[in-house]
């Protein structure tokens, strides 16, 4: 399949982006989180993109009703593989540890499979859990995010990472900004002036293997 070079919509902003942007959304309000998440999913499914959601905040019944309002059958998109829904705990805390290598391999595979199945593009939205910091591998969270940015250069899955400012401390929120090239500020997506290019960032840390 030929790569799709057109721009995509994130759904929660009017702006258009090339596929494969890596966006950080700092959340402090449950309604804001859910609204952004639902709009992101809807925009993906309406555009024929393969769409994936890792969240504890939405469930099948919320999505059935929301997507149904836009004429999209939840069961159909699940059955066709166009939509993947999973709790973030299952994904990020698999076997009670945070394994960046496993996550990176999963995103790579997701992109390759999406292309092979003929989807125009692919996207994922994930709600990061603060518990990640307290399990084995949790000290590699920033390394993981930096490596995601690198991965998306070759495998352009559009990715939005939701971080709850009520769950992560302020210093960690600042550190998280440094590993995301784009971020959401009051509903708009802006270039992040704190972003450290991933190769530079990764050269400054010693990763556990």
């Amino acid at each position, binding site marked *: 399949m030929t790569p799709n070079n057109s721009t995509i919509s994130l759904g929660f902003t009017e702006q258009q982006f090339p596929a494969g942007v890596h966006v950080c959304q*700092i959340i402090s309000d449950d309604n804001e989180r859910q609204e952004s998440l639902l709009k992101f999913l809807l925009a993906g499914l309406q555009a024929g993109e393969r769409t994936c959601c890792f969240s504890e905040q939405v469930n099948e019944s919320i999505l059935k009703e929301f997507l149904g309002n836009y004429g999209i059958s939840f069961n159909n998109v699940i059955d066709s593989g166009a939509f993947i829904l999973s709790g973030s705990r299952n994904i990020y805390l698999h076997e009670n540890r945070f394994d960046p290598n496993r996550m990176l391999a999963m995103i790579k595979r997701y992109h390759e499979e999406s292309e092979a199945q003929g989807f125009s593009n692919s996207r994922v939205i994930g709600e990061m859990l603060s518990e990640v910091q307290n399990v084995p591998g949790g000290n590699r969270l920033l390394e993981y995010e930096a490596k995601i940015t690198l991965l998306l250069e070759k495998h352009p899955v559009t990715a939005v990472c939701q971080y709850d400012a009520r769950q992560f*401390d302020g*210093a960690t929120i*600042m550190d998280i900004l440094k590993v995301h090239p784009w971020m959401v*500020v*009051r509903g708009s997506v*802006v270039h992040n002036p*704190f972003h450290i290019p991933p190769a530079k960032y990764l050269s400054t840390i010693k990763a556990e293997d």
Partner: protein
Amino acid sequence: MKNITPELRPEVLGQLLLMQAIISSLPDKTSIFDFTCRGLANLPGVEQVNYSINKEEAIATSIVRFPVQTRSGNYGELLIDVSDTVAFMPYVEYLKNFCFIIGVILDERAKKHI
């Protein structure tokens, strides 16, 4: 002797603006000052930044005080340990404004809780 001209870097001003925008969505004072101290440590010429809720009486000569206050509220001070005065100086006035804005945000929150 060569004249050293302090350089004002636009990306640093961008960082200050972005921090202001994010601070307004952080949940509490602890989160705000943790975030602020970590962020301001990126400023040119800065070694480290600490927050003190009370005015520190004795501080090292390398530390510059930035009170976080408005006419109606006093929210402590940021203590910025400066390692390169030439690099740091261009941002001093911006930092004063930045601290004032944090004070305004905290004022508004305090009024909402009344």
